[in-house]
């Protein structure tokens, strides 16, 4: 499939030519197909945030190319407004970006700003709230500062979704959320792709979240792509991940641990269910659960 987002040998240096020069990206390659969910993982300071800020032209390529929805983001005459309508960015702790008094107004801000008419704005706000699981009637007139952290994050997400972007970029979406709220958010992300075909790029330090939603994973270290593949290909590389300050999800760790003990088990397992089946087979446990 034709990639909807392509990064070729991307370099970026902050404050180049000054004593504070800091190399951030030194040759990242990446491809995301339409409707794919791709996660970017890497230790702190590996360049993940710098990379994703290229996707809606907050940073322009210094060297190398970024092509999004057929547009070369290095073009001097790039229509940035057009791009930002189609690439939605949800930064870390987006709840801090809420600024309107009422939930409905906050979500409507983007579409209004892009000059859509009243009816269309309302339709989009309604749809966006539905997508993130906020009841339109119940929440539109709530004061934003009275919401819980999880609710605020949903409002912030809805504000971006109301622009109906074809690519959605999320930086640490589950950070600071309780397990049920973060689970719910991951389900919404999957739904968004499954029902609307939205392409999703995710940055996260939480491997248990990454393993739940990703089709493919890019491991970025020191501004370079060091590993790329499906979760089943990436996570069994326990040694490599650990050497870069990362880790595999617990289930994969269990399987790797058993393999290290000399047991003949596959290590590319990701879910509780499949690990259960393999371990039961290997140890000759009962076929069905003992009641």
């Amino acid at each position, binding site marked *: 499939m034709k990639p909807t987002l392509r990064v070729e040998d991307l370099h970026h240096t902050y404050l180049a030519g000054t004593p504070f020069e800091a190399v951030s990206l030194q040759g990242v390659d990446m491809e995301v197909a339409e409707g794919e969910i791709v996660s970017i993982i*890497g*230790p*702190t*300071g590996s360049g993940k945030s710098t990379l994703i800020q290229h996707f809606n032209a907050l940073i322009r390529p210094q060297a190398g190319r970024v092509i999004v929805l057929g547009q070369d983001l290095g073009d001097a005459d790039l229509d940035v407004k057009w791009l930002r309508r189609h690439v939605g960015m949800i930064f*870390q702790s987006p709840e801090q970006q809420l600024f309107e008094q009422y939930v409905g107004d906050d979500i409507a801000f983007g579409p209004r700003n892009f000059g859509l008419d009243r009816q269309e704005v309302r339709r989009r706000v309604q749809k966006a709230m539905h997508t993130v699981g906020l009841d339109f009637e119940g929440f539109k007139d709530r004061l934003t500062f*009275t919401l*819980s*952290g*999880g609710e605020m994050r949903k409002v912030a997400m809805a504000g971006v979704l109301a622009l109906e972007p074809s690519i959605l970029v999320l930086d*640490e979406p589950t*950070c*600071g*959320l*309780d*397990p*049920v*709220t*973060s*689970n719910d958010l991951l389900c919404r992300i999957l739904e968004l792709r499954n029902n609307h075909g939205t392409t999703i790029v995710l940055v996260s*330090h939480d*491997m*248990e979240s990454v393993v739940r939603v990703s089709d493919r994973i890019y491991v970025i270290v020191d501004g370079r792509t060091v590993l790329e593949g499906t979760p089943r290909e990436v996570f069994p590389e326990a040694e490599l991940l650990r050497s870069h*300050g*990362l*880790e595999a*999800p*617990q*289930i994969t*760790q*269990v399987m790797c*641990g*058993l393999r290290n*003990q*000399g*047991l*003949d088990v596959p290590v590319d397992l990701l879910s*509780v269910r499949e*690990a*259960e089946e393999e*371990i*039961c087979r*290997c*140890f*000759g*446990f*009962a076929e*069905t*659960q*003992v009641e």
Partner: protein
Amino acid sequence: MITIEHLHYTYDLDRPRPVPALRDVCLHIDKGEYVVIIGRNGSGKSTLAKHLNALLLPTQGDVWIEGKNTKDPQHLATLRHTVGMVFQVPDNQLVATVVEEDVAFGPENMGVPRGEIEERVNEALDGVDMIAHRHRPPHMLSAGQKQRVGIAGVMAMRPSCLVLDEATAMLDPQGRRDVLDTVRRLSRQGVTIVAITHFMCEAVEGTRVVVMDEGSIAMDGPPREVFGQPTRLLELGLDVPPVTQLAQRLHQRQPALPNPLLTVQELVDELCGLPRPAELRT
């Protein structure tokens, strides 16, 4: 060490719509305990933590730290030295331009003599394994390193209790491992630890888990007891770590496997210790 009696706290008490955050919380924490507080967003965890060094004072009820009531203003300075706090975003907590100066800030403010400050800074930096970085500017460190400097800054005041409010939330896996190692070491040295987290695999680190829900304590016990009740935890907006889920399902098919198991290592060890049918042995 810490005694909380019938603590109630309400935000915006003078507003038309007051928000009750804590309702009748009673909790006793002994010296040297490692208590992990979990609970869904908005359950009152952080509000409770802020009562432990008088950042908030009870609307009703009392909080006693080493026998001193937090409401008594004459104890305020002592309290802040007894209970040290580390928050989620390390950058907000660092004040100086050099690591060792940052760590010295607390004891300097307490009026500790110069020679002793040096001794405390050395000890604190050693405790978080950051001696090698003592002359670096904090903003050049990784997030995990910054958080460890934040902990050192608190430890230089020699508190007997360390409160961590989601101190690992923003860190990468390595940063999280390093901070957890540091906390474990301080705990072994006898420092009382109160840690708030959303990572269930971190909650198993403690000697005791307290689960908050709607401003009250919903569960309180050793990790094995708390994580042995997955259904109840789910009702409370929480979860058990994936490895505990797996172990529980395996236990239902092979009762010889103990339940609950809390870490990857435990499960691997227990599985490898089980007798296996002859035809399956390798």
